[in-house]
């Protein structure tokens, strides 16, 4: 039978599409050590003009090696096969050098207008035909990274981060890869400050509010050990799905019965766009109408893409969550 194969594919896709991109292919990433260090000098050069004429601005930063891929000179034609990294590229100021993006890259608007590539059934040759000098991926459907390497195109495969620092680290890596380290560092600092601001006003109830974050109508969800879980943790919330994930995969599927027994205080629907789930349709599912969150009207629809990408909009995601949970402290 072909069911086990289907199961495997589906699991991969669920995890992939949900976390925006793959959390499954972590084995391909050997180490996270990077060489951002080389680039940090660029911004300070201007102040010490008397020192040895090492370089002028951006040229000094290259070559750069990130996650095993080396970029020799500043990339001028970038292909992003990950919606998250498309958002990061534009945020760090490298957007004008993006020539093609994957089908899910819909933000910012400029990215939606670039040439489109299907990152799930990736054709390496079609991407190579665009003559890119940097390819960013968050999911490798097969041997794409090896394929790009064979063609001499630097391709960086980013893992799904499991906390906020790992997400910020990727912003810096994208900055280093595109010669925009200063902007990337500024961005990380600004977002850290924004998060700190939100947390400063955060009420700290004795009992942390619990939540269930729905990825799709078959009750796939996230645990604390994912970037999404980290955002809720930043809002002082507790995940109900953690005991359901013995393997540590991060994206377990729950049963309705488990959900009823744990009875989370809040339900967040990150499948409102993909699957047309609304608080009303959620309540109509068998038995789920008996959840406290449904009875108390604490089922909150989210923008799927904002709630699944670890780009700069994660702070918008965090704000949506805290406004929903503490309307008096944060609402207008």
């Amino acid at each position, binding site marked *: 039978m072909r*069911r*086990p194969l289907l199961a495997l594919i*589906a699991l991969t896709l669920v995890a992939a*599409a949900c976390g925006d991109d793959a959390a499954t292919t972590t084995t391909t990433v050997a180490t996270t050590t990077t060489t951002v260090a080389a680039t940090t000098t660029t911004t300070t050069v201007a102040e010490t003009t008397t020192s040895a004429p090492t370089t002028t601005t951006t040229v000094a930063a290259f070559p750069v090696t990130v996650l095993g891929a080396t970029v020799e000179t500043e990339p001028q034609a970038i292909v992003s096969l990950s919606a998250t990294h498309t958002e990061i590229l534009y945020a760090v100021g490298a957007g004008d050098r993006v020539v093609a993006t994957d089908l*899910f890259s819909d933000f910012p608007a400029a990215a939606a207008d670039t040439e489109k590539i299907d990152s799930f059934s990736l054709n390496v040759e079609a991407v190579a035909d665009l003559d890119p000098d940097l390819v960013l991926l968050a999911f490798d459907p097969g041997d794409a990274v090896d394929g790009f390497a064979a063609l001499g195109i630097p391709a960086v495969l980013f893992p799904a981060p499991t906390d906020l620092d790992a997400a910020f680290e990727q912003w810096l890596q994208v900055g280093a890869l595109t010669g925009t380290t200063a902007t990337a560092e500024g961005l990380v600092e600004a977002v850290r400050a924004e998060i700190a601001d939100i947390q400063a006003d955060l009420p700290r109830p004795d009992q942390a509010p619990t939540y269930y974050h729905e990825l*799709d109508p078959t009750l796939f969800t996230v645990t604390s050990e994912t970037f999404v879980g980290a955002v809720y943790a930043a809002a002082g919330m507790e995940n109900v799905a953690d005991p*359901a994930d013995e393997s540590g995969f991060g994206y377990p599927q729950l*049963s309705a019965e488990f959900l009823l027994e744990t009875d989370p205080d809040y339900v967040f629907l990150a499948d409102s766009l993909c699957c047309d789930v609304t608080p009303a349709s959620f309540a109509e599912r068998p*038995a789920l109408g*008996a959840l406290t969150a449904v009875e108390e009207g604490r089922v909150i629809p989210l923008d799927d893409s904002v709630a699944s990408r670890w780009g700069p909009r994660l702070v918008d995601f965090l704000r949506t969550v805290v406004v929903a949970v503490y309307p008096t402290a944060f609402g207008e």
Partner: protein
Amino acid sequence: MTTGGGVRRVPVVAVVATTGALVAAAAAGILIGPASLDPGPVLLEVLDRLPLVSVDSGLTTREAAIVWELRVPRVALGLLVGAVLAAAGGAYQGVFRNPLADPYLLGVAAGAGFGATIAIVSAGSTAALVPIAAFAGALGAVALTYALGGVGGGGRTGATLLLAGVAVAAFFTAAQTFLQQQNADTVRQVFAWILGRLSTAGWSEVRLLLPYAVLSIAVVLLHRRLLDVLAVGEEEAESLGVRASRVRLVVVLAATIGTAAAVAVSGLIGFVGIVVPHTIRLLWGSSYRVIIPISALAGAAFLVLADLVARTVLSPAEIPIGVVTAFVGGPFFAVVLRRSSRGWAL
């Protein structure tokens, strides 16, 4: 049609054993789950829901919902799907005189998958249209198989139908894959659908399936004597005055309608249609007067049990039920095959 004579030939032990297994499986399915509820109140709650009975189970609203909105419909759906698939599998094996025949043989699965994909792509996975589209796709695929099987002009023999089924299934699978590729954003929902949905099922699915399940099993049951006649060979059956092609059409139609409805509400659940009828055949003989009714009972018990395993082994996570049916069914079947002194007779 006189079928009364056949009933007595069903071994009593077979009826008792399978009925007992079914009752035990259903009770376990209702009593056991990730939420730890005491057996007493759970049984009282089920009793309370029966007509004319009113008792206080002492369960909270939430616990009562777990029992009546989740566990009971799930057991009911597993029972119906298992019975339909096992009876349909037995019927297909009889009609085609082929031990490898299963309910998905003539393209039901591929057709249902294609229909569901069209509906999901155009209307979203929550649309009420999805099971209807899957049902229509399944019937359409089998109709195409039937039409294609007669193209050769040599009449629809079992062999030409099987080959046509292979071609149609391949075609619909390819069409579905293409459609999916063109709509990558819905790929998740399509796979979730294919993987089976017993886990999210409620009473609405049971209501959808019930009429088709009853119709399908009843028609197949009424033809069980004719299946025995067909088993001696097509020409021999004709010489006995049985029109093989007509019997085949009716039985295949009935089995297909049941299977299509089962697939439409529960996704693809493999192996039940093969392992259950063969196990019954090996245990209690190769007469379809025994195989069809006992397979339906055993299939119901088997699927309810498989579902119980699927949702308890890794609790609170769940394993797709098709994995369990194949994983548990395969070795069990091997043991039955080995123990059987009757050998392989069809």
